[in-house]
């Protein structure tokens, strides 16, 4: 059924820990964490005083009139997309624009715009709602701006499946390339949830990590017995995907092949994951890559550091990898860059690709209290280098139950 192999030819990030993949990966392998006490007034939000911020001021990149239309989520998306396009050395003006597409994943979309509109309306009792509120807040704004930036007139779609949103965007984009429906896809995720309203809402769920008062950067502890929840982060990550032979023909640098994509859905509860559901998504990804589990040399785990997820994901990995599960290095880089929600899947796929290219597995940081329910090789002692990595799996699971798994293979 598959007609075309999918080459990953461009990688771009605007993320905590890095404005380039090289900077991001260097920080990850050094075990540096971007998690910090948020600036005021965000630090006043009970239960959500910490987060991972992108060092980025839109005023340095966009004009005043344009900034009125761009929520921070779209600003970050445009930056990451621009870097992916530059990395791919592709000129969209020289392509057939309707044979290219833009797929983006986001969970909270234009949260700051929504928040500010409601603050004006309910907080200040003002009737002056900015005229761009709808356009800034709408879920597909980031994808629309990216498409306009490059004149891409093929499909422009936004996927919103909470924390698996951008893994879905990448997977669906890969399918369009595989089928021949499109030739080049600009796909990614963007999230900018660090606003008072969103922080309060997440804090109310009690799923956020308790800040480590002594060392806030160590607050996110995936797979550790003393883990207490996730840490919210902002950022964007984009990839350029294109037909393999086409990439070869234009002399593109191929970072990896996006060879596998699997989906499943948990339907037992709106937030509770199941090992069986997560395992089904991993098996579906392996099947689409036509690989057995023993082909996978590294897993970038979903690893949110919630009590539920990490134990369930461990159990699911055991179901899929069987006796070999203890031999596979597994890490949750969320311990350092936090949880980018809808952008997490794209960012972590890029980290998995960077791992393959460099033969280096980034660590799971702050895992200092082993949990009997999480007994795999989480690379907690620090980055592992000098490895021969052929294929990597990136897991993304979500509230609402949409599990998405991507597989990247080293380009030959």
């Amino acid at each position, binding site marked *: 059924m598959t007609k075309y192999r999918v080459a990953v030819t461009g990688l771009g990030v605007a993320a905590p820990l890095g404005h380039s993949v090289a900077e991001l990966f260097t920080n990850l392998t050094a075990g540096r964490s971007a998690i910090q006490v948020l600036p005021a007034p965000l630090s006043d939000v009970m239960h959500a005083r910490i987060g991972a911020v992108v060092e980025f001021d839109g005023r340095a990149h966009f004009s005043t009139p344009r900034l009125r239309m761009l929520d921070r989520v779209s600003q970050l998306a445009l930056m990451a997309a621009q870097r992916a396009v530059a990395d791919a050395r592709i000129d969209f003006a020289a392509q057939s624009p309707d044979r290219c597409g833009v797929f983006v994943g986001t969970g909270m979309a234009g949260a700051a715009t929504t928040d500010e509109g409601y603050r004006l309306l309910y907080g200040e009792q*003002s009737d002056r709602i*900015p005229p761009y509120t709808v356009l800034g807040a709408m879920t597909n704004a980031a994808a629309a701006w990216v498409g306009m930036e490059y004149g891409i007139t093929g499909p422009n779609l936004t996927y919103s499946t909470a924390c698996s949103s951008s893994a879905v965007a990448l997977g669906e984009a890969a399918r369009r390339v595989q089928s021949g429906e499109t030739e080049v896809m600009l796909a990614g995720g963007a999230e900018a949830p660090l606003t008072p309203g969103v922080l309060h809402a997440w804090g109310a769920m009690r799923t956020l990590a308790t800040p480590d008062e002594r060392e806030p950067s160590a607050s996110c502890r995936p797979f550790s017995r003393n883990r207490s929840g996730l840490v919210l982060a902002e950022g964007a990550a984009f990839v350029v995907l294109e037909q393999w032979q086409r990439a070869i023909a234009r002399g593109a640098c191929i970072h990896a092949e996006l060879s596998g994509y699997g989906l499943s859905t948990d339907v037992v509860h709106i937030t509770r994951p199941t090992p069986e559901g997560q395992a089904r998504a991993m098996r579906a990804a392996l099947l689409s890559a036509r690989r057995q589990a023993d082909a996978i040399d590294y897993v970038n785990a979903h690893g949110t550091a919630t009590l539920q997820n990490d134990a369930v994901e461990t159990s699911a990995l055991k179901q899929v990898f069987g006796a070999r599960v203890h031999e596979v290095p597994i890490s949750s880089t969320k311990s350092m860059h936090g949880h980018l929600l809808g952008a997490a899947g794209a960012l972590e796929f890029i980290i998995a690709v960077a791992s393959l290219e460099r033969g280096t597995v980034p660590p799971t940081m702050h895992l200092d209290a082993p949990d009997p329910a999480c007994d795999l090789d989480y690379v907690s002692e620090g980055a592992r280098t000098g490895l021969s990595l052929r294929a990597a799996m990136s897991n993304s699971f979500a509230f609402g139950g949409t599990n998405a798994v991507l597989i990247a293979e080293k380009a030959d």
Partner: protein
Amino acid sequence: MSTLETLQEILSCEFDLKPAELSPEAKLAQLGVDSLEVLELMFEIEDRFALKIKDDIPTNLVTIDDVVQYIDSLLAQQSPAHAAAGPGLAPFK
């Protein structure tokens, strides 16, 4: 500062337009100020001139001079002397 000068300053600072382009005859649409930006411009005008603009913004604001005339007419209606005479004219918070 005249109404025209203040408006020119708003358009140049908040809408990134070149001062040389902002002659009274210049057309807003040709300057790239679309219908949503006109709404944004009204907010700026309210703040800078301490005016209250109602929802029924005239549709015939084509040139910069049209906007100047509109502002001047509102200033005349909403000056303190007029405000005392009619309801609904208190400065907007």
